[in-house]
């Protein structure tokens, strides 16, 4: 299975609609392809949060009738077309610029295009295979720093916090499922599960403390992401026992 096939099948896989072989192929690919695994995980988190919000959505009692009423209102408010005289455009008004204005405009354009070129080149020569969520400000490209400074994107710390929150939501969901099932497990399974969960929790605590002391530690950010995924996997895999 290649990445394209895997990504096409992520939705049916998560919904449990694939047959045994399809699921096995997906599992195999996800275990060796970090990119698809991350996509699948993100998708899973979105699905879980959507499932959690279903009950809070307001559904009108008769949606068809409501749509008819809206449609009638729109139709009644459409006015007959009025032929308007064409307005004067910027070009038709002409360029009434002084020499100094034209010079300033030229300089501004030159400065902006030079800046964009420099940013583009730096960005091109600093390719990164890392996940943006597990990166520190030290390894950000200039363009990314600029975007986060003007508030267009999250800083690495914000992105990490957001991701941890999403992972925690999924962990809570699977943990509830596990709590419902674990009464039926034998002692051996229960001990093994608890031992592994405790070990993961210890790692999560350690990495969290390190990140509080040094938020720019890329590697610890990445490891925290990994152990939270491991925790999610452990809970999910034991929830079907």
């Amino acid at each position: 299975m290649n990445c394209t096939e895997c990504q096409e099948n992520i939705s049916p896989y998560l919904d449990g609609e694939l047959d045994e072989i399809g699921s096995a192929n997906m599992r195999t690919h996800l275990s060796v392809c970090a990119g698809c695994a991350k996509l699948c995980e993100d998708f899973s988190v979105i699905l879980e949060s959507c499932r959690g919000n279903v009950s809070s959505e307001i559904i009108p009692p008769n949606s068809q009738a409501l749509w008819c009423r809206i449609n009638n209102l729109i139709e009644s408010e459409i006015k007959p077309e009025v032929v308007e005289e064409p307005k004067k455009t910027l070009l038709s008004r002409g360029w009434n610029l002084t020499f100094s204005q034209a010079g300033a405009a030229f300089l501004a354009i030159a400065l902006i295009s030079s800046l964009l070129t420099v940013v583009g080149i730096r960005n091109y020569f600093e390719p990164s295979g890392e996940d943006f969520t597990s990166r520190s400000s030290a390894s950000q490209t200039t363009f990314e720093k600029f975007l986060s400074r003007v508030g267009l994107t999250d800083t690495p710390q914000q992105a990490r916090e957001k991701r941890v929150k999403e992972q925690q939501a999924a962990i809570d969901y699977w943990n509830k499922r596990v709590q419902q099932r674990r009464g039926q497990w034998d002692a051996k399974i229960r001990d093994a599960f608890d031992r592994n969960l405790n070990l993961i929790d210890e790692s999560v605590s350690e990495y969290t403390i390190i990140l509080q002391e040094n938020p720019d530690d890329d590697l610890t950010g990445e490891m925290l992401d990994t152990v939270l995924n491991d925790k999610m996997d452990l809970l999910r895999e034991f929830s079907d026992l």
Partner: protein
Amino acid sequence: MAGFLKNRFHRFAGKTTILLLLSVVFFFAPLEASGQRRFSKTYPATRNVRLTLTNRSGTVTVEGWNRPEVQVQAYLENPAAAINPQIVDGTILINIVRDNYGRGDIGSVNFTIRVPFDAAVDIETKVGNLNVSSVRGSLVRAKISSDGDITLTNISAPMVSAENGIGNIFFDGDIQSGGIYRFTSMSGDINLRVPFNSSFKLIATAPSTRRINLGSFSGGNMRFLGDGRRVTGQVGDGSSYLTVTNQRGSIAFIRR
């Protein structure tokens, strides 16, 4: 003289029969005494057959052999546990978790499975050891959700993945050009025995212990990052990818 010989022959035959009977009794006695059940079945295998096994608890041993068939032997600790292997499109599917869903104590199921050398092997269990040997198919994947050791010996596959929680991982096999190799553990030792002339790009991470022993692969192309928590680099022309992560244990390379 003839009478003497006849008498000796009868005595010998009598002893042999008793011995045979005793061996039969002793062979079956442990299973009966402990209440185990034995399952054994052989399936014809197509070329590049795939084995997909999901176990709950117990040891799984998969061995490659020079026969176009798959032999499945299972010892079920609890005789009431269900086992229903299926063959779908040349894949042999065994899923103890699904077959026993909603049932409490089904005990351990220990497998010994023989597959053709060129088989793809995809096995996982919640608890227990996984052993795979003498397989050179397109894939070897072994996953233990919690406790257990993974031992992969004499493996020659382009895709190898071994993942466990608490336990050791040992890999002894080839690193093929264009291959992807991934070994992940929470705690335990990861030992990789690969040929000296292997070629790969390496990312090895041991964040807690920082015990990464590259053996004969250490050299100029390797870089230690994050205060020795990670090693990245290239061996040979770097034609394959090798990713090793051990959260709380060590990583060691051994020359083959």
